[in-house]
């Protein structure tokens, strides 16, 4: 992935994260093509995720919310799988973040650690206390 050095003021719109399109959808017309199909399924999974999240929160019985959690975990994994498949086919293209902006964020949020109310227990990038 090519990264260009730039000012810290904004994104670099010309830097893309993505792969060249492997397979053009075969049908380009009013019919659904493979890309439409995967997009539709991914969209359904996203909507289901919200509905299941609400169901999990509002269940009055633990075993019911646990069932929703299990379905949710599956749905999160399916979404990843669908996304990765589409990305690998070159159907997704993202703008790369400006590295200077990332460096600034690291600095700013490292400084914010000084506001921690519970002491400096973990080093940045260190193990969690769970």
């Amino acid at each position, binding site marked *: 992935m090519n990264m260009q050095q730039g000012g810290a003021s904004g994104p670099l719109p010309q830097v893309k994260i993505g792969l060249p399109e492997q397979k053009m959808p*075969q049908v380009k017309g009013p019919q*659904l093509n*493979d890309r439409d199909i995967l997009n539709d399924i991914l969209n*359904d999974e996203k909507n*289901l995720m919200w509905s*299941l999240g609400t169901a999990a929160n509002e269940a009055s*019985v633990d*075993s019911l919310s646990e069932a929703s959690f299990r*379905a949710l975990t599956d749905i999160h994994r399916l979404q990843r799988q669908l996304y990765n498949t589409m990305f690998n086919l070159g159907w997704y293209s993202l703008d790369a973040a400006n590295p200077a902006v990332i460096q600034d964020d690291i600095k700013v949020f490292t400084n914010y650690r000084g506001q921690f109310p519970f002491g400096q227990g973990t080093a940045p990038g260190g193990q969690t206390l769970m």
Partner: protein
Amino acid sequence: MQLSTKDVTYLRDQMSWSLLMAKKCNHYAQQCQDTQLAQLCQQVGQTHQAHYDMFLNQLTNLAGQAGIQGGGQQA
């Protein structure tokens, strides 16, 4: 365990969504030109079908605990 009306409504919805997704993914698997993508659709559909049974089992088991007899399926 006493199920609330909301619990039952959600279970009904969840089973309906799962069945719809299973059917839809099966339909899409047949429409897909690419065999790998067709397999992915199939896999997604099978996951939703398994969720249907999981929710139906929940309903059956919780009804059983509440002493409600029904024509539920075996686990």
